[in-house]
């Protein structure tokens, strides 16, 4: 693999996840507004928000240095995670440096960084949010892990690129379809949107983990949430339904863009039409789903 190709695809991934994500967020806001019979903000409103927040006053409620660092860490780790998702071709750009477990853990680190920010802010609301966020995360992480492991068993490799390649070449089998369905059912929980935005519930705990954030930190966390939405949708679109790939990488990127747009549309519909779950209901839902998704492993072992 050539170095310049790696750098090129890496830049594509970074741009896709970090820099196009506010646009997708704008899209979701627009859709939500239409559903609620409002006019809604312009599509680029999320960019304006970020830029505006970056220059706003930064209120510091604690001397804790983690409070200052960890918001930026969330964005950085999302950038790292972006490099492990295939967009321009079947192999993700940095497939050589890590595998599915690295991916799972990097997603975890995003959560850790947000939780650390919340805990460092010394606000009890933030603590409640952090506690909920951890619980949600640990209940939903196994679903993604099981789905990826199903792929790994089928493909005989832990590298994301090889899993996707195998999947693309051999077509879907029963176990992979099941895994895909499970990930789809967990998609809202993975993104952290309604009905699973329990850790940031505005009405109950005043945005929980975000309560003490302001200025550039708030911008970063907002930005990270948008990017995470795109990242998870990308994972679902590119790893679990990798069709169709062409030999031209530009076309591939455009296909990926539209796939993600469709998934975000669905996700937004779910978000707009559903109420928020209680934390115990969410836990029960996720863990049941995780238990159910073990079936896909069983099927994969049987070879179907």
């Amino acid at each position, binding site marked *: 693999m050539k170095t310049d190709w790696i750098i090129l695809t890496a830049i594509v991934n970074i741009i896709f996840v970090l820099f196009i994500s506010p646009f997708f967020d704008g899209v979701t806001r627009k859709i939500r507004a239409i559903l609620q019979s409002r006019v809604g903000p312009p599509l680029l409103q999320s960019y304006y928000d970020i830029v505006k927040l970056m220059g706003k006053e930064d209120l510091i409620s604690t001397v804790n240095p983690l409070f200052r660092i960890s918001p930026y860490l969330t964005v950085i780790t999302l950038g790292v995670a972006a490099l492990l998702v295939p967009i321009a071709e079947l192999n993700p750009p940095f497939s050589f*440096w890590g595998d599915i477990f690295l991916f799972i853990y990097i997603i975890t680190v995003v959560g850790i960084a947000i939780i650390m920010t919340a805990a460092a802010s010394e606000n009890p609301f933030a*603590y409640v949010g952090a*506690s909920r966020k951890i619980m949600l995360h640990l209940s939903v992480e196994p679903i993604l892990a099981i789905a990826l*492991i199903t792929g790994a068993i089928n493909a005989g490799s*832990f590298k994301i690129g090889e899993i996707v390649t195998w999947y693309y070449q051999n077509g879907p089998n029963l176990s992979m379809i099941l895994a895909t369905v499970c990930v789809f059912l967990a998609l809202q929980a993975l993104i952290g949107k309604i009905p699973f935005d329990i850790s940031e519930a505005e009405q109950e705990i005043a945005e929980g983990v975000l309560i003490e954030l302001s200025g550039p930190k708030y911008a970063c966390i907002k930005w990270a949430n948008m990017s995470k939405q795109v990242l998870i949708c990308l994972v679902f679109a590119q790893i679990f339904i990798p069709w169709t790939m062409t030999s031209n990488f530009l076309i591939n990127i455009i296909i990926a863009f539209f796939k993600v747009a469709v998934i975000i549309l669905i996700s937004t519909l779910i978000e707009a039409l559903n109420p928020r779950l209680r934390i115990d209901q969410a836990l029960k839902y996720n863990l049941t789903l995780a238990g159910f998704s073990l079936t896909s492993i069983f099927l994969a072992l049987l070879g179907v």
Partner: protein
Amino acid sequence: MVYLYISFLALLSGALITSFIRNKFVSGFINFLLTALSSVCLIYVCADIFIENKTLEDKLLSLTPLLNSSFLISLDALSALFLLIIAIVSFCVSVFSWKYLNAYEKHSPTKFYPSLMLLFLSCIGLVSVKDLLFFIIFWEFMTLTSWYIVVFDKEKKEALKGGLQYFITTHVAAVFLILAAVILYSYSKDFSFYEIKKALQFIVENNSVLAHFVLFCIFIAFVTKAGILPFGFWLPNTYPQPPSSASSFFGGVMSKLAVYALVRFFLSVVPLSFHTQVWGFIVATFGVISIFVGTLAALAQDEAKRLMSFHAIGQVGYMLLGIGVGLYFININPFLGLVALIGGLFHVFNNAIYKSLLFLNAGAIFYKTGTTDLNKVSGLLKVMPAVAVTAIVGSLSIAGVPPFNGFLSKLLIFESSIWASQVNECNFIVKFAFIIFGIISVFISAITLASFLKFVNSAFMGKLRGVIDDKRDVPFSISFPQMILAIVCLLAGVLPFIPLKIIYLAVSSSLDISVPAFSTVFSTNFAGVSITFSEGISTGAWFPIYVMIFVLILSLIILGFEKYAKSPKREVETWYGGKEHLPEEVVYTGHSFYQPFKKMLSFKIGSIKFVAFYPVNLPSIKISLPYFFIKLLHPDLWLYYPLAKKIENFIDFL
């Protein structure tokens, strides 16, 4: 070899000297000096062995003709690996103890330092000998000295209870080891590991049932000490009791020596056969049980050291999972077996470092606040930032977050247990079981993270609470060992090829079959490793340096962005939703974390209540003997006195 004896002598003389010195400062200093000497010697020995990949042997004294046993010291790479762990941890522990013992004002150091140094000594002896009799002696001596440290605070009821449970359980387990030893001796007529291996070979070939029984005895003896559930029920009651520096040695080294013993026996004493496969599976199963129950139970703990003790159980489970998978596959699929064994042993190394670090953190909290209850302290980052940072490093390491050291070892364990699916020689149910094991351990890894985030969040974050003495600052000698351990955590994670190479040597030197070469299993460079499960195809990878470089670039960009934005900064009070509250009124204590999750995991079977899968109110077992049986044991009452009476009457009659 001479250096090993120097370290022996240093510790022994230290134990003797410190048992007569009542001044805490002086005896702490002597302890520090001599332990440092012994650590330096040990590290030299280890380096010598690793660099030249050789085995040092020496026979000191022989007990023939009474018993065919000799004090056979034999250091191979596996022993050296554990000597290295002991050297690092014992050094840190003794530096830490020096000032830390001041927190126990009423207690004399003569109760602590001699037994601590004897504990170091017995640990060193345990990994150095290759003779079963002396192995048992060091094993029991370790139990004895550690028991004495557990009951350090002799007026505390829990300490006594913990000590009693600990000593009785581990002694009973050690008796199983003795049983195995005498059975093996009746075949081998010699206690050296080489002869015992031959005897076991014979037993495995001729008497399968006996072979399983012997392996069962060995297994019970070691997993009890390692704290594998259900045999390790004593551990959470025991480890929190001694001063934290000793707890740290217990959690970091002592329970890992049980894993050493297991590896030593199953790799170099038990011949590889179908039996090792069966027991490999059993080891992995028990490992997973402890991973699951131990770590979940930790979620429900509010006391820092008790929480860590439960994690000690869970983490040992990870090691056993790796080792069990390795034992199962080493014959069928050497690549997979080797990776799993290396994963297990790497986890031992990592765990020794971060587990002792975390216990030391808890000790520092105790030093500052007089308690380790997470409901009573918070916000300590403001008064001891170094400790807080090391605690975060330790917590992330134990949760296996990249780039810290726990990640790679866990990665190896996950991947090898899941890779079982690709091995055609193995049974479908076994395959499925191994994959479930792997998934459980992935899931529990998140739980580990959750419970350590709780530890960090409630102890170090938030408003400052719980400090009893403002003047008692945490001295450098307390934070320094934690920094060392934190740096080792980071280094072992970022430069994984050094520990991997050492551990590869340890595994390959203790196995007597030929294993795939290092370069075919792990293709490493300075930046990381890629893992190979079958000839020539890399299937997993972890290159921390590349990731770090990229992270660095990204963070430069984003921080530059922030600098450019130049937002004004202002310090404000915490916002409580617009109301005026005292911080104490609105505190979110450690107990409040994860309540819904804990509630979900709690259930009742009969009258036994399980909180997070761990029984909290076990009914006490009462054994009573029937009265006539007791009477039967007193022949006075039913035989001698009546008889004497009869004879007396008879004489009167005459």
